[in-house]
């Protein structure tokens, strides 16, 4: 699976099954296939029989202080058992409090308390699934006063404490480095290459808020030039890893996603050649 993959969207199911396009692998959002049956699930079964698959969760609310949602975890477990994904991932975030869900990826404060809590929860999820999961760095639009360490330090400690791997989202890293004013390359240097098992690439938008520029992680457009550059730096630091093109809003034709994936493939090949 050392090639570029594409985020799987239902709009493309029929085209993928009819044309068998050349795509390295697909990544599906787990919650889109939680339904017990029906056409989408059946199509995923057929796609899985032809392509490697990764499962990417957006709703487990791992960082929440609510009890872990065991119903959600059971659904995830059922999908993992049925589809035998190569990789399973979730986010370094929370999305619920006191039973109410915001269904968004909300940032955690990087404190000792949050580290202990999140590491234990990741441990619980890995125990339930019987496998390692990858944790993805999210885009964020604020920082908490109580945060004690940099995100890369928090992620590194999380890997050490829970045994999870890292899904490094290059776009989120770029967005945060611009929004919060830090050096993205220092972040890369702080992460251990052994922990990184997947990259994400996506598009973001630049907007104005309170008289300042802010970058919003919209997954609605092409990967930005600066993000491609940072991806190059990440390949240099970590070596080639499975890389996903994500595009989840204003979803274009599959061919547009294939063209983005081809760009990632070309960069991956360069680094594979160097690694060899």
């Amino acid at each position, binding site marked *: 699976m050392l090639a570029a993959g594409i985020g799987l969207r239902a709009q493309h199911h029929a085209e993928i099954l009819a044309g068998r396009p050349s795509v390295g692998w697909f990544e599906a959002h787990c*919650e889109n296939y*939680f*339904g*017990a*049956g*029906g*056409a*989408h*699930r*059946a199509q995923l079964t057929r796609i899985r029989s032809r392509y490697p698959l990764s499962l990417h969760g*957006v*709703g*487990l*609310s791992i960082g*929440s*202080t609510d009890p872990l*949602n065991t119903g*959600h975890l059971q*659904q995830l477990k059922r999908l993992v058992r049925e589809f035998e994904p190569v990789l399973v991932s979730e986010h370094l975030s*929370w*999305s*619920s*409090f*006191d*039973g*109410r*869900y*915001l*269904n*968004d990826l*909300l940032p*955690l*404060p990087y*404190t000792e*308390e*949050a580290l202990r*809590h999140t590491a234990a929860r990741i441990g619980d999820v890995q125990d339930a699934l019987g496998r390692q999961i990858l944790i993805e760095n999210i885009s964020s*639009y*604020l*920082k*908490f*006063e*109580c945060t004690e360490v940099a995100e890369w330090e928090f992620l590194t400690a999380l890997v050490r404490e829970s045994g999870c791997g890292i899904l490094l989202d290059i776009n989120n890293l770029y967005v945060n480095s611009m929004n919060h004013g830090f050096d993205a390359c220092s972040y890369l240097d702080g992460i251990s290459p052994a922990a990184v098992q997947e990259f994400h690439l996506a598009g973001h938008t630049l907007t104005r*808020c*309170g008289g*300042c520029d*802010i970058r*919003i992680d919209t997954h609605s457009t092409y990967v930005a030039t600066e993000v491609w550059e940072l991806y190059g730096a990440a390949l240099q630091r970590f070596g080639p890893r499975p890389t996903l093109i994500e595009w989840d809003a204003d979803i274009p034709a599959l061919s547009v996603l294939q063209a983005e994936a081809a760009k990632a493939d070309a960069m991956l090949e360069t680094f594979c050649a160097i690694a060899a």
Partner: protein
Amino acid sequence: MLSLPELQARFAATLFGDTAEPSGPWIRSTGIAPELRLGIYRNNLQEGFVKTLALEFPVVQRLVGEEYFRQLALRFLTRHPSRSGDLHHIGAPFASFLRVEFAGTTYQYFADVAALEWAWQECLVAEDDEALDANALQAVPPHRYASLRFALRKAARLLASPFPVTRIWELNQSAVTTQETIDLASGPEFVLVHRGVGGARIRRLSAGGFALLSALASAAPLAAALDAAVLCEPHFDLTVSLQRSFELGLFARMSFSSDRS
């Protein structure tokens, strides 16, 4: 310093609009003000919710218009926030919300249209169970027909409405541009929503056919279900109705009532 539960409680309360409390010194105020930063998340919450609800209830949205649907969805979010990490579930209480919201008005039918759309959504993702073959009946001795019970397939829903809901649904599909007006008094309608080989379908049933399937769905034996059907449709034809149900693949299992009196 805020503990993690305190921080999450405050964040969630601010986004859901429970509290007018100023966001205070728990968020760093460099560049963009904390209220504006939280506003980005509040916008994500609201827009994600409205967009998902609109995808689940396109006919209700078309009936009320995009802007009013948005206002309705935001009121609904306050009353019925998501209770799941899977946002698809938010639509479950929408019909009952609309029933209360429009009680006693000429828009009472919105709730029944929403119930129809939710039944459709449920049928799309219901479990893929096997249809019972009509040949199964051949093995049943006639004296046991009365005590037969039929379990409906998972992807089958029954709805009754005093309004012509299927007509409203048909004329408000995105591709339909007709100016035809619908007489709200042209109901009632008895409706089956189910998923067959070709996908989800909405079908009108006769009053008797609806009564029969509703009784069977609540585990009544065939004799009692037939009584219920004949009560609202004196010339109800059981053979035709059962045959049609088998053709549509509505039944999953057959069993016998333990009470054969």
